[in-house]
Structure formats: C-alpha cells, structure tokens
C-alpha cells in the first residue's frame, strides 16, 4: 500500500507537469506534425556533382504519341534496348561509383553471353583426348602381330562375306571357280605324276578318286540371295529352311529337297524359286549334293553352306 502525504503530493505534481511539457515538445517536432519542416534539398557541391554521363540506354521512350493505329498494333521496329531508370538512391550511389562508361566498357555484351575462351578449351579437351586414345588403340592393334587363329577366322569371315552379303541380284563370279576348261578337266582327271621315287615305291598306281571342292560355296558359280517375301515380312513372319540340292556333273540343278521347312509356304517357295531360276552351279566329275541353310529374318537373309558331297549311284 502506498502512502502519499501532502509534501509528496506537491513533488509528484511538479514531476507530472515537467513530463507533460517534455512530451508535448517532443511530439510537436516529430515528422509530419505541426512544427516539422522538410529538410531542404542538399546544396549542390558545385560543380563536382554534375556529370556528363555517356549513353546509358534508359527506359526506351514510352509511346509518347497517343496511339491511333488501327488494330492490331504492328510490332515495333527494334530500337536500343532500354534499361530501367535509376531511382534517386541509386543515383547517389552511382555518383560515388566509377564512371558508367568504364562500367559499360568493362562488361561487354560478348562477355555476358559467351564463356571465356579458356572454358571453351576445357570443354573441348575431352574430345581432343579421346581421339589420340582411339588412334593409339588402333596402333596397338596394328603393332600386335595377328595370331594364326585370327588370320584363319578373318579369311573365313571374308569368304563368307563375299558370298552371303550379296542381297542384290548381282551375280558373284568367283574366277577360280569358273567351269573348268576341258584342259583343266583332263588335267584334273590325270593322276598327278608322282615323284620317281614314289613310283618306284608304289606297286600299282590306281586311278585318282574324283575330288569335290572342300568349300561347298565354291560349287556355286552365281547366286542371288533370296529375300524374305513381302507378304511374310508384312506379317512379321521369319523362318529358316534347310535344303539339299542335287546337281548333275554338268552343273545342272536336278532336284531341291527341303530337309526342313520354314513353316511358311511363301518363304519356302521363294527359296526354291530363287535357287531354281537364279543360281548356277559348277560341273563336277560326278553328280553331287549341296547342303545349305537359308535363314530369313526381317533384317536380312543369310545362306550357310554346310556340305558338299557326291551323289551315290541311283540318286
């Protein structure tokens, strides 16, 4: 509980009066009140704060003229790109900053849009590295002598390529497999003259057995790779046929036997007709068989020759 005596009451009144006067004075001079006066504009520090500034693309001229154009308004023709006008505060800052011209020169449009040359070089670097690596690999490959197996495989592949990638009607003639001339046949039929010593050792030199080329491909003088029939391709049908061809000693086709059908008559028929009509065979000492497989896929057709052998009597 607060007790207040008369003396204390007088002190309190004086304090309150003083406080009220101070508050009134303070409030009267606050901005926006009765005695507040706007600070005068800063005097120009003559003439140091006056600058000629080289061209700063300001906000482009607004359409000063009232627009009376008929709709639709055409696209304006390109003019210098405007920039927003600086506010007062910004100007004051700019006054302390280096001249705008320098700033503009420092930051050219190219610098803003294009990466530094060094960066470009860095970007290109991986490609530059990759190429020599590839080249080195190739050099290594070339330097390394091929294994004998590799050579064999390569030759086989090459031979297969010659015979199986011919998708056109172009005939492939293998010069070494042209029909033998009469002289060749005679020479082939004549037994090779054995060396004298051998003759001496052999008691009775019998007639030489007829030979077939080891590679069945070489018995085919001309061939066209059959194609997957259009209607089968249209239905997405693929298939493989295994065929035995009987050829007489004059190279004339005698019979085509399907050891395995593709399951699609169109494919079988096209294989048969292609061989019948477009293939040519070499003559051999006796009738002979060619055993082959033709694989028809949507992407390609391949022919694989499996075997060649003489026909038995009566075949």
């Amino acid at each position, binding site marked *: 509980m607060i007790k207040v005596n008369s003396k204390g009451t007088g002190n309190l009144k004086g304090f309150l009066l003083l406080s009220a006067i101070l508050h009134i004075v303070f409030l009267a001079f606050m901005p926006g009140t009765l005695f507040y006066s*706007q600070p005068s*504009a800063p005097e*120009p520090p*003559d*003439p140091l*704060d*006056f*600058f*000629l*500034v*080289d*061209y*700063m*693309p*300001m*906000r*482009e*001229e*607004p359409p*000063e*003229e*009232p627009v*009376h*154009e*008929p709709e639709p308004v*055409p*696209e304006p*023709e*390109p*003019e*210098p790109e405007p920039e927003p*006008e*600086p*506010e*007062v505060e910004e*100007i004051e800052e700019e006054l302390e900053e280096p001249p705008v011209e320098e700033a503009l020169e420092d930051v050219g449009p190219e610098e803003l849009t294009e990466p530094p040359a060094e960066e470009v070089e860095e970007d290109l670097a991986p490609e530059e590295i990759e190429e020599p690596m590839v080249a080195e690999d190739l050099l290594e490959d070339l330097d390394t002598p091929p294994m004998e197996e590799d050579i064999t495989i390569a030759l086989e592949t090459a031979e297969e390529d010659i015979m199986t990638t011919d998708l*056109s*009607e172009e005939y492939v003639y293998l010069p070494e497999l042209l029909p033998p001339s009469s002289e060749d046949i005679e020479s082939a039929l004549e037994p090779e003259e054995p060396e004298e010593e051998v003759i001496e050792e052999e008691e009775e030199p019998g007639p030489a057995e007829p030979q077939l080329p080891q590679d069945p491909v070489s018995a085919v003088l001309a061939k*066209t790779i*059959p*194609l*997957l*029939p*259009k209607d089968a*391709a*249209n*239905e997405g049908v693929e298939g493989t046929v295994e065929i035995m061809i009987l050829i007489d000693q004059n190279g004339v086709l005698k019979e085509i036997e399907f050891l395995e059908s593709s399951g699609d008559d169109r494919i079988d*028929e*096209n294989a048969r*007709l*292609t061989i019948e*009509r477009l293939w040519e065979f070499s003559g051999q000492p006796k009738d002979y068989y060619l055993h082959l497989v033709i694989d028809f896929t*949507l*992407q390609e057709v391949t022919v694989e020759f499996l075997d060649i052998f003489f026909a038995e009597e009566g075949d």
Partner: protein
Amino acid sequence: MAKTWLLCLLVLLLAFGVAVAGPEEYIDGEGNLRLENEYIAIFVNLGPENKGRFALDVTGGNPEHDGDNNKPLIYGHPRPWTSYTTVRIDGENYVFGGETSQRAGRDGKYGEVTQEPQVVDGEKIISETRMGGVAVTQVLSFIESTTTGFPDTAKIRYDVTNESDDDKRIGLRVVLDTMLGPNDGAPFRVREEEVLQDKVLIRDEIPEFWQAFDSLEDPLVMAQGDLRGPDLTPPDEVYMTNWGSLADGVWDFNFRPGREFYREGEFELDSAIALYWTADWLAPGETRSYTTSYGLAGIDIVPGLLSIGLSAPGRVIFDDFTQSFQVMAYMQNNLDVTARDVEVALDLPEGFEVIEGSQRHTRVGELEAGGRMQFAWQVAPKDDLIDPEMLNIQVRADASNTDETRATRQVEVMPPAALELNLEGPREFGFIEHAMDPNPFPVYGRVVNTGGSAAYAVQAVLVLPPGLSLVSSDKEHLELGILDPGEEVEFRWMVRSHGRPGDIPMAMEVSSRNTRDISVVENIDVPEWPQGIYLKWDDTERLRPGRVATALVKIGNLGDGVDFEFDLEYPAHLLKPMYISRGQLMVSGEEKLEFTRPDYDPESGVISGFAGDLMEKDDGSGVLARIHFLVRDTGEGMLELKNVKVSDIYGAPFDLGIGDLEFNIE
C-alpha cells in the same frame, strides 16, 4: 403427345447424324491412325517403326458397285510400310517419318519426327519430320475425284521448308505401292497403253491421270492417280515398275525398261509407281509444296460381248491454263471367239474436236477372245469461248460378229475462276509531336473470286516504292490458298513511311495457278513532315520535390546527317541538373556518336554547349539527350532551348520549329 416426342427425337437423331456425317477418325485395331469417309480411308502408321507411312483402303467406294467395299487401294495391312517418301536434300536421301528395319527405305537416312501423325480439324492427317535442316510436313486429306465427283480420293501433299541459313537443293520422291483389292500387281493404264513392264514418263509425256484395274468384266477396285490439275504439282518424272526395286532404292533404283512387274527378289507381280520431283534450289525460310492425289477411278462400264469402260473428268474448266481434257475408253472382247472387223468411235458434241491421241474412228480389225484395248483422246473446244454446258460424250464399239456397245458420259463445262482485287490505305495522316500519325499504317487488300470455279494457290504480293517499307514482322508475299467461287478474303499489311512526302503509289499483285496474274495500284498521300527540336519530360509523374525527373531533348524529321548545337536554360530554384546522358540518336549500334560535354553554370541556370553530329540516322527523329534534374521545390517554370543551330551534312541550316517546355511542380 407421344408421337410428338417421337418425332422430335427422330429429328434430333437425324440432325445429329447429319452433323457427324463428315470424316471419322480413330485408332484402328492395328494401331494405325485412321481417317475415313464413306468412300475411302487413309490410315497412318503410328510407329515406332515406319511412323508416318500411310496406306489407303476403300470403305464404301463406288456407290453403284459393292465389289470394292473394304478392299485395299494401297498395300498396308496391318501397318503401312511399303509406300514411302524420300526427300533428297543436297544429294542425301532422307526418308520421311520414323526409321525402318524393313526392306522399303532401309538404306535411307532418317530425320526426327517432330510432329506425330494427328488428325487436324477432323479432315486431314498431318505429321512432320525434320531432316538435314529442312522441315517436311505430310498432309493427307480427302478431295473430290475428277472422274467420280465424289470425295473418294486422297490428296497427298508435302510442304518442305528450308529452316537452315543456306540454300538447299531439294527433290522429292513419292512411292505408292498400289494394290487393287487382292491384286498387288495390276497393270497401269496410261493413255492408250496398258503398262505391264517398267516404264518412265517424263514431263510432257505425263498425262492428266493414270488408272488401274484388273478386269473390265468384274473389276473389284478401279484406281486413279491424278498427275495434273490446278491443285496439283505435276511431277517431273513418273516411273512404273515393281515394288521391290523401289523398296531397295531410296532414290535411284534398278529400272529396266521392258521388265515385267515381278517383285525384285521374288516371283510375284507387284506393281508400284514412283513420282519424282527433281531437285531444285530452295532459299532459306522458303517453303515449297508438292501435291498429288490417288483414289478411286470413275469408269462407266457397259457390259456386253464387247464391253466398254469410259472415263473422263466430271467437270472441266477451260481457262488460260487448261484448254483440253482427257477421255479414256477401254474395250474387252468377252466372246469365246475372235471379234472381227472391230471398230471404235468417239462421238463429241458440236464445237469439240480431238486434238491428240487416238483417232476418233478407229478400225481395230480382229480382237481375240479375252483381248483388251484402250483408247485415249485429248478433247478441246474448237473456239476459245465456251459457254457453260453439259457435254455428252459417247464411245461406240462394234464388230461384225457382235452387237454394238455404247457407253456415254456427261462432262460439265464450268466457268473459269476470275479474281477481283482491291487495295486501300489511309485517306489522310496527322502529326503528333512531329511524328506522322498513324505510322506505321495499315494497308488492306481484298481478293474475291467472281468466277465459276475455284482458284488454286492464290498469292498476293505488296509492292512498295522507296520511302515506304513493310514493318519487319510482315511479309510482302501472302499465301491465300484456294478461293472457291464467290469466296472473298481480306488481309492487311503494316507499312511504314520514312518521311518521303507526295502521292506515293503502292501495288498489289495477285496470282494463282489457274488465273492470269492481275494487279491493282493505290496511291497514298504522305504529307510533308514538320521538322523541329523540342523538349519533353520523360515522365511528368516524377516532377515532385525530392525526385529525379528527366527532360528529353528531341528532334523530329531532320533526315540523315545532322550537326547541332544548343544551350538549355532551366529554373535553378526548381531544378538542379544531376547528370546528362546521350539519347538513342547519339548511339549507333555499339558506337557512341560525337557529343560534346556541355558547361554548367549553377548560378545562371544554363547548361551551355550541347553539340554533336548525328551522322546517318534513319529518319532524323528521336532523342538527342537526356538531362536528369533533381526537383528542388514546387512552382511553375520553363525549360528553354537557346542558341539552337542545326544544319545538314552540307552545313545548310534547318528552318526548325523550337519547342520549349513549360511545367508546374506541385
């Protein structure tokens, strides 16, 4: 009451039925995008392989013949891949659409499909592929057949746009793997020839149309390809050969005149046709269109011992570009014995004659049992002026051991297309602050077809003299497309004046594929532009104490090359100059033009010694300088230009109006 409701329901159903009677679109059971009407269907492969390749079916076909219903016109079930289009760009062969692993087009290059096949406006299927800097759009739609008069024909169009920065040498080849019902190897019928072996037609040899059917006795499907016509682009070469050869060769192919249409690599007949548009230069940004059509043939067949098929356009138009039409007749001996003393005759109305082709009266002699012959006549009016009328054309075939057979066909002569033009610019111009108003201004063109038939590929070009130019967004060439009889089209260009005064002529030239080029000239009166130098606040809202306001020193219509000097007086108690910057006239690209730094006297309120050289500027209008003032106080004041000297490049002074600027700061 129930009857009324029933009637209303019936009317609604009928109305709905009519509303949906147009082409129908859907994805078919095989995954193709299909657009069909009551005659034929176009269906397009949606890929991923062979995307964009198309084929055609008959739906209802010939209304008088059920044998063709739902039969193929182009090989393509379940998914089209055998017909394809090659775009030859600078010697490289690109195949339109998605890649393939199949035989047709396997060796071609492929671009990127940038627009999946889709139906647009319910009436056409559009797809787009970009390849080698070129955008190619395939547009497939229905059009009326010239011989049937029904929309039973597919219009096949390719729009090729050079999107690169270089000229491109571009050609096009369209392969159509024709198929008439189950017959994939039907011969082609070209003029008087039944084509059964490899054949090429070059330029003038190319007929208006070719046809294909298997038999006159009971043809399942009768097809026709149009090669010439007002809405078509005649190919340079047409090859008829087997499909296999065209499948293997994406541009050049194994062509052997005299070889039958046995599919290369197989032993079945399979005819196909390739239309070539040889390579020609296309400038950057330009577009070239190639259009052809294929669909059902209108052949009137009269059965008999000597049966006759007669075909001719249902409507013909005689104009500056078309002076004749083609009539074809087919005859087949259905006797078991040789027909003897066979004669064929063409009867034409008065005023018409045969100018090319078969004799009007042909003595055939003997025609073996089952033998076929065909005849073609190019028919033209004897006089230039032909009134619209219906022509009756008749072909008679007779033999000594049969009865005579007659086939008749009606041909309607239509009046040609005729275009009328109008060009209109502003009647007068005003000025706002030294600037002509309006500028740029609109120029309206109008083209109306007052003729009796459609005008095709209509183009309008605006020709402007020096002193006027188009705004950059407008093109002087406008493609107006097809204008049907009575149809009118209005368009607009925005033109800018560069200050050359006088009565200036503008011209509009209009051309089309089947009308003469015509033009119209319109004069506009461009007034003398007032010249002046004046002041303007950039934004009067900034005229407030404590803010920065910008005054613009502007000139108007001073032409090229200006030297200038002036001083500027301002009320120093209201404004304090902060800085001055160049106007856009004082900058030319990256280069800052000569601009002398003025002197500043804060006591007198004068900025003196503005000077510069504008060199060459467009029309000598714009902002010379910007003066940025700090607004000090409220009150009225004036900015004044003093000691103004403006001269041209020869030193001759301009007689200028000078515009000072009064203002009030509140």
